[in-house]
């Protein structure tokens, strides 16, 4: 799978509603952040969790989120950031129109 995103891209975290083992915590779902860098490609933990090692591999990114965006009552600086790793299939591109707000 070719990575769809690169550093600087704005992405929205999907809430895929998957049951079972996933590595996308609830608190970042439906929030948008910025790709910090590509981490490479890895076997999907959702497959590994059920013993499937046949692949395919999935691109992984580190994504940064403004703390003030994650938590409405956040107490700290506007520049404070949360950095987390997210797999490609949990992300959508954020369009320029959305970027404006």
């Amino acid at each position, binding site marked *: 799978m070719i990575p769809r995103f690169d550093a600087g891209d704005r992405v929205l975290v999907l809430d895929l509603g998957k049951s079972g083992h996933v590595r996308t915590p609830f608190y970042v779902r439906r929030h948008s952040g910025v790709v910090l860098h590509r*981490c490479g490609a890895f076997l999907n933990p959702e497959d590994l969790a059920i013993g499937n090692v046949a692949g395919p591999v999935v691109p992984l990114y580190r994504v940064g989120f403004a703390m003030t965006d994650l938590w409405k009552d956040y107490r700290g600086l506007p520049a404070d950031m949360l950095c987390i790793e997210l797999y490609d299939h949990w992300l959508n591109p954020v369009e320029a129109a959305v970027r404006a707000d």
Partner: protein
Amino acid sequence: MSDQEHTHDHAHSHDHAHDGHEPLVVEDEAGNIEGQILVDALQTLLVERGLVFPGEVRREIERIEAPGVHLGAKIVARAWVDDDFRTRLLADGKSAVAELGIGVGEAQLIVVANDADTHNFVCCTLCSCYPRSILGQPPAWYISKAYRARAVREPRAVLEEFGLVLPDGVRVLVHDSNADMRYLVLPQRPKGSEGLGEDQLAGLITRDCMIGVSVVGPVA
């Protein structure tokens, strides 16, 4: 912790005001004996089935006991005295630490550097991922529910509980170690350490500085 306390903790799991401390779930003496019996039984079955050889568990324990804070400290001290190494370390942690003979078993190592404007710290909200091959086992508080829950939401309050108040204007970057990367904080080299050699510098560096809940204090 007794069974009675277990029940108590559970009943009050959302009531965090009653003693101000989120209970850390640890086994009491009976629980530790039960854990020992359980793991001995498992080991016996695995040896019987030829899946694990006798002696292999002992050897693996020796292997996982070997890494510790001294490895992380060595990495940081080298980065303080060697700018080229520092650059390589920040670009590709795993390859750079391999130059020091340190093997990272985890997928990849991301080293995040503190500076005058930025303070980094590391947690794992989903389980307790930790760079075991360079820092050893995580401390008990790192795997506690309170740390896992709060680090990503109120990092400054958490740091204050560790006695760390950041100077005005310093931004916080929290790293939730949730997938295939592991994180090491590269603390700032302290004032007054200019004349120190690499080994002396390594002696200043604590585990907590490399998790990011502390900083390296000035050298007297």
